[in-house]
Structures are given as C-alpha cells and as structure tokens.
C-alpha cells in the first residue's frame, strides 16, 4: 500500500470547505453510502454497476452529518444539521419517515446489534434511543456536557458508549439507562474542529472499546471495568479523528489529523501499513466481505483501498464475527416483505422477537451470498468459510454470556451443551488447583502446608512448604521425573501419584516420609494397566483409589495391607488420623444435572466402616472439597458454596454450616482449606477466579460458620446461629467423650471443654430469652429455659424476666426450676442426653427405685420460698437410700445437667417422668439391680469423673462439714456434689447476685442433710 496513491473520487461538493463526511458499506459490499455535512444529499453508489450514477437522496434541508445502516442492511438512517433523523429503505432509498427531531444538529447515529434501537445524538444535551419499530423514543440518556459526536452500541447489547467533543466517554447500561462509567478527558478535545468529530468504537467481539487518546494514540478500554488496557501508539503526529475495526477485530484502521491512515494489528499492537492523503480522512469503513477499506476525506472525496491488509497476513474478515447472522429483521417496518408493523412490539420484546425470526433471515442471506459468489470472485474463500464460522461464534457466545437465545434457533446447541454439562464429575484431589501453563500450581494445600509443582523442560519441580516454618520439617525441593499430578500431605509425609500418560508411563504412587530413622525410607508402587485417581494420607497409612475402583491401603512403610473394591468411580478422598473418607459416584447424573455421590468413612486401624451413605450436594453443583475439620468431622464443600459437616445426629446426617451466598461479599469465591468448630479457613478469591495462584502466597481468611437459618421474626439470627452451632459442637464432644470413656481413656480435658461449651450455650440461650421477651415470644422463651443446662442459668433467666417485668414468665420459669430440682433429686429425668438414647431412661428409672418409696412432695403451690425446703426434704429421702449405690446416683444426677433434648417438649418429658414414676411404683422394688448397674457404670464413667473434680473443688466445705458431723460420709460429699455441681468458673457474672440465693439454698440443703445423717446415726 505504501507508495500507492489512491485516487479519490468526488462524491459531494464541499466547495472547498472541509467538512465532516461519512461513508459506509452495506452488508453485501454492493453499495457504498456517502454523505457530507456540507451537502444536503446522500449518495448510494452501486459498486456492481460502476457506470451508473449514484442514487441521490435529497430529503434533508441541510448538510448530512451522520449515517447509519441497520445491521441487516434494510434500513438507512441519516441525521442532519436540519435537526432531523430520517429513515430510508435500503438499498432502494425510498424515504420512510422522520423518525425524530432534535433542537440542534445531529452529530451521531448508531443502530444496535439487532437493529431494534437507533441511538441519535448531537448538539442537544441528551442521547435519544429510538425504537425503530414504532418510532417511539424509548429513552433519553443525559449526562454529556458537550455535543455528543460518537456513539457505539456494544455488540453484546449491554452497553452504549458515547463520546462528546470535549473528550468525555460515557458507558451507559442499556437496561437501566444509567451511566456505568464516565471517563473524563480521555479523548482529544475537538470542540474547535468542525470538520472532524470524536469517535469511539467497540471491537466486534465487544470486549474492548477503542477511543482516540490524548497522545495521538488509540486507547483500548475494558468492556466491563472501563479500565485502560493498552494503547496503540505509532506514527500519528496529530490526534486521531476516526477509527474503524476490521470485521474480525484483528485490525484497526485509524486516520489522524495529520492526513494519514494507519492500519494496526491489534494483537501485536503495531502498525502494519500507512497511507498518506491530501486531506484529512474523516471517515472509513471496512468492506464487510473481502480485504478493502473505503475512505472519505473532508472534501467529500471517497475511494476504496483494495487489499488493505498485506496478502501475507490474515484477511480482515477471516474469522469475522457472525454480525450478519445474529442480526435479524427486527425492523419489521422495513422488512422486504413489507409486513405489517408489529404494533405490540416494545423495545424490550424486540430482543426476543428478532431472534425468533433470525433463522429464515439468515437462510435468505445465505442464498443471497451464493448468488453473490458468482459475481464477486475475489472472496470465494471467505464465503466458504463463513457458514461454519457463524456457528462457531454462536456457540462461543452462548457459553460466554448468557444471551437471549431463541429455542427454535438454537435448540441444537442447547441440547449439546446440556449433555455436556451432565457429565459425571471428574476425580479431584482436595486442595489442588488446575494446571496453568508456565505457572506453579498446587497439588495439595491444607492447614499444614502445601505441595506445589511446575513443569519445566519436560520435568516437574515439586516443592513442599509448611505454613509453620518453625516446627515443620524442611523438605528439599524435588525434581519429579514421573510428572505427578496429585499429592497429599500431612505432618509425617507426603504421597504422590500420577496418571498414566500413554503406554510408556505407568501410573506410580510414591510416599516420602519427612523424618524416618531409616535413610532411604521412601517407597513407590507401580500399577500395570491401572491408574491412580486419588490419594489420601493418614497417620501410619496411605490410601490410593484407582480407575479399577480399587481402594488400596498401604502402611507407612509400604506394606500392601488391604485392597478393597468400591462401588463406583471415585471422586475424591481425604484422610485424618485413622479415618479415611472416600466419595464415589453412586450412579449416573440425574437429568436435573445433579451428581449422585456417596461417601464412606473407614477406620483404618480396626478395618471397619463407620458410616456410609449418599453425599448431599446443592442442586446443580458438584463437589469441590472434602476434608476433615480440626476436630475430625468430615466436611464437604460444593461448587455452589455450601459447606456441610457430617454429624451423628439423626443417625448420621450432613448439616449445612456455611453458605457463601449468605456472605456479604457475594463477588468473592471461597476456596476452602479447612475448618474448626466455629471458623472456616479459606482463601478468598476475587471472582471470576475460583482458586488462588501459588504466588503471591495465599493468605487464609477466617469466616464464621453460619447455618443457613430462615430469617425469623425474632431478629436474632446471630444468636440462633450460635445456639445451633454450640449445640452441634456439644453433641460432637459428648460423642467423643462417650467413645473415649468407652475405650477407657481419661476424658478430663474433654469434660472441661464440654462444660465450657455448656456455659457458652447457656449464655447464648439467656440472650435468646432476652430477645424473645423483647419480641413478646413468651412460649419460645419458656422452651428456651428448659434447654438451659445449669441451674444457675435458670435462676439467671428468672432474674432476667423479673427485671423485664414479666411476672407470668417468671412464675413459669420458677415452675421449670422446681421441676428441674425435683427431677434432679429423683434422678428420673432420663433421656436428656441426646447421645444416650431412650433406653437409658428406663435404666435410670430402674437403677433408682429408691425415690418412690417416699411419697413425692406435692407441688401444689408454686411458691419460690418453699423450693429449698422441698428440695431439702426430697434430698433427705433420696440420701437415705442412696447409700448403697451412691456412685451411680451421682452419675445420674450429674448427667441431668446435660442439655435436654432441644426438641423434646416439656410435655413429653413430664409424661416420661410420670411414666417412670408409675413404673417405679408398680415395681416397688428396693435395691438396685446389679446387672444394670454394670452398664450404667460404663456409661457414666465420664460424669462421675466430672463429679470427682467438682467435689475436689468443694473439698474445703466437705472438710468443714466433716468437723461438724464428726465423720466424713460418702453421701455428704455426694450431697454437695449433687447440688453444688456448678464450677467456680462462673460465666454468668451478671447473674452473680443469684449466688446468694443459691448459697442459702445450698446451706439449707446441707443443714437438712446433716440433721438427717446425724439423726440416722
């Protein structure tokens, strides 16, 4: 192109005055339309018959400043200095209508992608969006401070970009009509220039907005953020006044005030070609088919630059977006069939309507194109390629943006994609990230450390890092000749596995302990015709699941200990101490696109399976993480952001304890690393990233667990959440205590923890009670009181409601307290510990038949003052009998302090209590059944232990008493233990005033007992 001189042909007489001229092609590259701001006519040049004079349309009264052709080339719009916007049929050129009028000259026009909207703007203050179907103005966008000179609809129909002559660019949201971004002073100030206008243009794929910059360059702005991405800067010595994207978006043509036209390769960001002209080129248009650029200068002379792009390079239309195929006959008004205008059509419907008709249109067009092939021999290649290309683009856009797609038109694609989506999820390693070329990625990331790998010259380099550099062992980096694709890490070692690549590379499993007394303690296993899918690691064992659905368990030293078959293709696995959890596919996906997964928990040491069942997932999601909490609870996280933890409640079920959608920052993705009882450890990634990069080192964020509770009328969601979490935690601890005591371990630490949680739970319940009282939910408050585990808390609750002036409630609470004290002394409440089950209730009743030998006191009066006396009396009675099995008695009584089953209503409990009493009455047996005692002893090993501690704290008092009583009696200690179970570490500082009352109560009980014991002696 260099050196060639393009001869321009005069189209409009500008009389020597330079003025802005426009030029554009029609879709088939058959016609060129030109206009000039100095000429009131516009010309349609038929290129197939060059001899014919151009068709002249002279409807405007003044110079034509703007031209726009609807995307399907059926409608031409022109704007003029005479303030009007006119529509014509194309290519015929019949005048249709004055679609709108302004009060000042028009400067810019643009059709949207479907042709349903025409944007017009000029020296007036607003941009008008005109519905082309009925000519109504659907919106006026105001915000520019100067004349608007450039308009461009985003090809994806989300935004409109506009630029004014003082250089401000505004992104408008088409749905809202609001300003999305304003970029001030980014384009040159061409206010004083009258022959050229500021311009801007979206790239054909809509990802980039090109705007002339201040430094004689073109600046590319991001579609969504409006951030500057890069700029094209080269040989323009003055500002750029026009730019045009090639149809495929690979090239861009710019013309500057320095009378040059430059062609740029956008990907390489460099200019490929340039052409000098005698005058400023004020408008250009790429030929839609072929390799040519039409230009027009400010004197109204136009020409076509043939083979603009060197033949050695890709054609400017090669891979062009299917602009044409997507366009449609939204312009019913100007349809070639002259259909009746769609009256009901509003601008919002159009988007849907026009797709419906796009199929026939595109077929029609294709027919036309084939006609065309005969005439135009220069671009046959492009034509041939066009059809498949169109489809590719469609598919791409479907995946990329959820666009409005008509059912008829794209049914084929949709079914294709859904069938693709229905795939069963691949196996993955928890805490791994996907392979990124040239970058390190995680093979494993957990709370202990991470294993990263990077491929380099055919080998991989694996690094093992511990988060805690102080205590963790230092592991040298390893060159990996196997190409490991999965790994797992714990304190003792790391295990690696690779999939087989081709025939040569066998699948390998390798274990590297971090510290061993033996020097060469790493081992590896090779699998013939079998492929490792998932690896897991625990204390003293290594597990690998293969594609043959074998679960292979090795010892730390490499002994092959077990090979099991599992039910389906493995998804993932996780290990923790002696527990191994495996998730596999149970069946093919449901048509609703839900994965069917099941899990199993194995105990490796005793070779048992502790649980199995289906793994729940949020509908339409897949599993993304599986692991154990720090306490050893199996947890899962799915792609919809729901974290579930497995509990033994309800016979083993999954509780959702976190939902990312409930978090405030919904833009973030949470990459789960681990959790403990109250916090979730995760790496927060900005959307759309779903996983963190290796560098910078990800930082863990702590998030509070939050059960997805319904928003209750109480407005105390946080408290309710805390309440449920504490309950969950408590049940977990109690389960562990039971397990440990069953196997004969010391549970003191856990007991302390359990007590602390109970205290915290009580605190939480008290606050909930306060919230209930304030919200007038008195029944709920009464229910809550029954859930309190400590007597002291109940008294605190009574004080609270008294302070809140709710005497009815206070009376009810007193009743609860009385009942509780009564039950305590009788030891007949049973079944309060959710883990011990109903069977225990009967055992408890039978073990304590003593209580019903005496007539139970009548609680006819709900008088608070009488409580101590009654309790004392009650105590006397029990004590006298309890001598024989005082230890058991203690156990039961202490056990009463466990939170009652939160879902058991008071009625139920009363029934049970009375039932128990009746039973005892009928029994009438004195003396405990020895066999049952044995059971009880095992069961209540822990509580008695707890009691021992409590009593040791109260030693002083006991000794004091001993002095008075002259001798230490087992049941005197017992008595103290029963009543003064509360630890000195009182979490209820507020309720401390209560202690006085309690103290006196205690004293009275003690006195009674002393009298009793002395009397007995």
């Amino acid at each position, binding site marked *: 192109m260099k050196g060639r001189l393009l001869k321009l042909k005069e189209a409009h007489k500008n009389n020597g005055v330079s003025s802005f001229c426009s030029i554009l092609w029609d879709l088939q590259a058959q016609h060129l339309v030109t206009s000039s701001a100095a000429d009131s006519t516009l010309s349609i040049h038929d290129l197939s018959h060059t001899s014919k004079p151009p068709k002249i349309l002279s409807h405007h009264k003044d110079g034509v400043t703007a031209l726009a052709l609807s995307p399907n080339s059926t409608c031409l719009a022109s704007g003029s200095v005479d303030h009007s916007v006119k529509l014509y049929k194309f290519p015929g050129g019949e005048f249709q209508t004055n679609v709108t009028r302004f009060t000042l000259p028009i400067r810019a026009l643009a059709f949207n992608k479907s042709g349903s909207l025409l944007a017009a703007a000029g020296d007036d203050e607003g941009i008008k969006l005109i519905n082309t179907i009925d000519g109504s103005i659907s919106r006026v966008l105001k915000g520019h401070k100067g004349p608007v000179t450039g308009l461009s609809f985003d090809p994806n129909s989300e935004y409109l970009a506009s630029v004014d002559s003082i250089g401000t660019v505004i992104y408008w949201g088409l749905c809202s009509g609001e300003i999305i971004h304003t970029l001030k002073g980014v384009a040159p100030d061409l206010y004083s220039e009258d022959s050229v206008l500021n311009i801007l243009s979206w790239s054909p794929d809509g990802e980039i907005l090109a705007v002339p910059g201040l430094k004689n360059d073109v600046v590319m702005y991001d579609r969504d953020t409006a951030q500057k991405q890069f700029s094209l800067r080269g040989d323009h010595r003055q500002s750029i006044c026009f730019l045009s994207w090639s149809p495929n978006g690979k090239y861009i043509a710019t013309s500057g005030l320095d009378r040059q036209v430059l062609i740029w390769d956008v990907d390489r960001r460099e200019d490929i070609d340039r052409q000098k002209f005698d005058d400023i080129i004020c408008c250009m248009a790429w030929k839609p088919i072929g390799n040519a650029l039409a230009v027009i200068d400010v004197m109204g002379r136009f020409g076509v630059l043939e083979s603009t792009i060197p033949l050695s390079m890709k054609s400017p239309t090669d891979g062009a977006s299917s602009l044409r195929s997507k366009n449609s006959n939204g312009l019913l008004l100007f349809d070639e069939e002259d259909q009746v205008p769609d009256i009901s059509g509003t601008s919002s419907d159009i988007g849907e309507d026009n797709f419906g008709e796009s199929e026939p249109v595109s077929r029609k067009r294709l027919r036309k194109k084939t006609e065309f092939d005969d005439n135009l021999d220069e671009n046959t290649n492009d034509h041939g390629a066009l059809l498949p290309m169109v489809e590719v683009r469609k598919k791409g856009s479907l995946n990329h943006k959820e666009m409005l797609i008509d059912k008829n038109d794209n049914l084929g694609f949709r079914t294709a994609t859904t069938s693709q989506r229905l795939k069963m999820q691949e196996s993955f390693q928890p805490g791994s990230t996907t392979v990124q070329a040239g970058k390190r990625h995680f093979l494993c990331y957990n709370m202990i450390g991470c294993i990263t790998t990077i491929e380099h010259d055919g080998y991989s380099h694996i690094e093992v890092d*511990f*988060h*805690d*550099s*102080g205590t963790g062992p230092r592991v040298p980096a390893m060159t990996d000749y196997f190409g490991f694709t999965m790994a797992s890490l714990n304190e003792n070692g790391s295990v690696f596995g690779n999939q087989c690549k081709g025939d040569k590379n066998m699948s390998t499993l390798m274990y590297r302990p971090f510290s061993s007394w033996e020097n060469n303690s790493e081992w590896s296993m090779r699998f013939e015709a079998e492929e490792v899918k998932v690896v897991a690691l625990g204390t003293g064992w290594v597990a690998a699941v293969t594609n043959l659905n074998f679960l292979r368990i090795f010892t730390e030293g490499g002994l092959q200990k077990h090979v099991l078959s599992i039910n389906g293709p493995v998804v993932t696995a996780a290990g923790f101490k002696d527990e191994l959890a495996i998730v596999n596919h149970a069946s093919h996906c449901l048509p609703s696109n839900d994965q069917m997964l099941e899990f199993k928990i194995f105990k490796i040491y005793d070779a048992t399976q502790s649980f199995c069942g289906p793994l729940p997932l949020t509908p339409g999601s897949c599993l993304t993480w599986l692991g154990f909490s720090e306490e050893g609870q199996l947890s899962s996280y799915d792609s919809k952001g729901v974290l579930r933890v497995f509990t033994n409640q309800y016979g083993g079920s999954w509780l959702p304890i976190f939902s990312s959608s409930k978090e405030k920052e919904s833009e973030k993705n949470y990459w789960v690393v681990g959790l403990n009882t109250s916090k979730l*450890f995760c790496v927060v990634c900005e959307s759309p990233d779903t996983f963190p990069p290796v560098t*910078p*080192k990800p930082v*863990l964020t702590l998030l509070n667990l939050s059960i997805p509770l319904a928003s209750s009328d109480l407005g105390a969601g946080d408290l309710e959440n805390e309440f449920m979490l504490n309950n969950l935690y408590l049940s977990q601890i109690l389960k562990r205590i039971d397990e440990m005591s069953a196997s004969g371990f010391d549970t003191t630490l856990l007991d302390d923890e359990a007590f602390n949680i109970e205290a915290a739970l009580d605190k939480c319940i008290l606050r909930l009670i306060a919230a209930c009282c304030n919200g007038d939910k008195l029944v709920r408050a009464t229910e809550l009181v029954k859930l309190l585990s400590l007597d002291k808390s109940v008294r605190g609750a009574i004080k609270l409601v008294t302070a809140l002036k709710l005497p009815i409630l206070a009376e009810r609470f007193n009743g609860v307290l009385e009942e509780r004290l009564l039950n305590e002394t009788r030891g007949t409440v049973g079944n309060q510990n959710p883990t011990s089950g109903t069977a225990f209730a009967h055992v408890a009743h039978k073990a304590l038949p003593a209580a019903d030998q005496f007539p139970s006191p009548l609680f006819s009066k709900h008088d608070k003052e009488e409580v101590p006396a009654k309790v004392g009396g009650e105590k006397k009675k029990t004590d006298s009998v309890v001598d024989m099995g005082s230890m058991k008695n203690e156990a039961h009584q202490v056990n009463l302090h466990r939170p009652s089953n939160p879902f058991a209503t008071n009625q139920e409990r009363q029934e049970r209590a009375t039932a128990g009493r009746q039973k005892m009455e009928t029994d009438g047996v004195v003396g405990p059944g020895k066999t049952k005692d044995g059971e009880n002893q095992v069961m209540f090993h822990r509580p008695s232990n707890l009691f021992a501690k409590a009593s040791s704290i109260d030693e002083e008092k006991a000794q004091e008493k001993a002095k008075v009583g002259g001798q230490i009696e087992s049941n005197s200690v017992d008595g103290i233990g029963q009543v003064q179970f509360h630890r000195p570490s009182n979490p209820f500082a507020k309720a401390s005033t209560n202690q006085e009352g309690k103290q006196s109560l205690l004293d009275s009980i003690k006195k009674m007992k002393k009298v009793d014991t002395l009397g007995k002696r």
Partner: protein
Amino acid sequence: MAGQSDPHLSLFSSAEVEFLAEDETVEIVPNMKMDALNFLCGDYGPFYPQITTEVPLWLAVALKKRGKCTIRPPQWMSVEKLTQVLEAERDSPREFQPLPFHYVEISRLLFDQCQFLFIDNSARDDIPDMYMVRSLIEDIRNVRFHKVETGLETISARTHAVKLKNLSAMEVNIVRPFVVRTLQAFYKHDSPQMIQHPDRMANRQPQVADRGPRRDLRRR
C-alpha cells in the same frame, strides 16, 4: 524554611517521631504458630501460620527481621490509592487528603526494614510496584509540603492561629517550631503587651514557648 534545616528546632527528632509511629498497627501473616503475646500495650495474637493478624509495627518489624512473618502492606499503600491521593492533592491546593497520621514514617519503616516486603507479597514481576509506591509517597510528601509552605506564606500580623487539617505527624513536626515562633514574633511586634502572654503560656507548655523566645533573644 527555618525549622527544616535545623533539626534542633524540631521538638522531636525524626527518629523520635518514627518511634512514636511504631505503635501503629499493621497486618502480618505469620509463618509460625505462637500463643498470644501479652504486652503492656495490649494482647496480640495468637499467631497461626498463614492467617493474618494485627500487631504494632515494631513487633511486625521485629518478627520480620527474624523471618517469622510477612507484612501485608496497608490498604492505602497501593499504587491505585496513592495515585488517587496524589491527584487529589494536586487538584486541591488548599486542603490535605486524609492519610494515616504517620504515613511518612510507616512507609519509611516498611521500605527500610523490609526491603523484600513487596517481593514476598507478590510475584517477582511486581517489584516495579515497590518503586512506584515509593516514588508516589515521595511525590505526595513533596506536594503536601509545598502546600504547607505556600500556606505559611500567608501568615501575617492578623493571623491568630493556623489550622491545618489532615496534616501528618512528620509534617507537623517540621513546621511546628517555625509556626509557633512566627506567630509569637507577630504578636510581639504587633502589641508589646502581648509578649507577656506567650511567656505565661510558657509555663504550661514549657517546650514550645520556652525555646522560641529564648532563641530569638540569643540571635539578636
């Protein structure tokens, strides 16, 4: 400017101001596990690897020196934020942008003590960030100080007080002696009976008033 050239006129040396700034808190990411530290100034920690926690700058620097943590640059120390601040500083000649009171000292400490702060926290190709941040802070400082200078030029006999909003510790430390003395000098020249006043004030603020007049006398 008088106070600038002669460090003795500053009430605090810059090292002292820096010392005060070390009480500001920053976020660190420890790489070791440690129980909470109970200091007179408060409890910090507990420290868990890879989980951010907030500690005073001096502790952060001490841990960093031992390779026990990485310091996360504060929010305001990003290129974007500082560019904004710089532009705003340039655009508004009469007011100062809100920055941390000790921004000069904090940035200096972080740059000096932890040269690899930015390398640690970001990929190697982000090193330009560090230079960028450094030069931006330098620019902001210069712009602000220029503003202070031009502002002080307007002090006249009618000025009773100078109000400078959002001025940072280091900046105020530099101009304080000068401003105080200027105002006193104006008072003195304006009305002889007012000379007593600052003297009486001197009892309450021994450092400020004491030094000013005496030096004036000596110089004369």
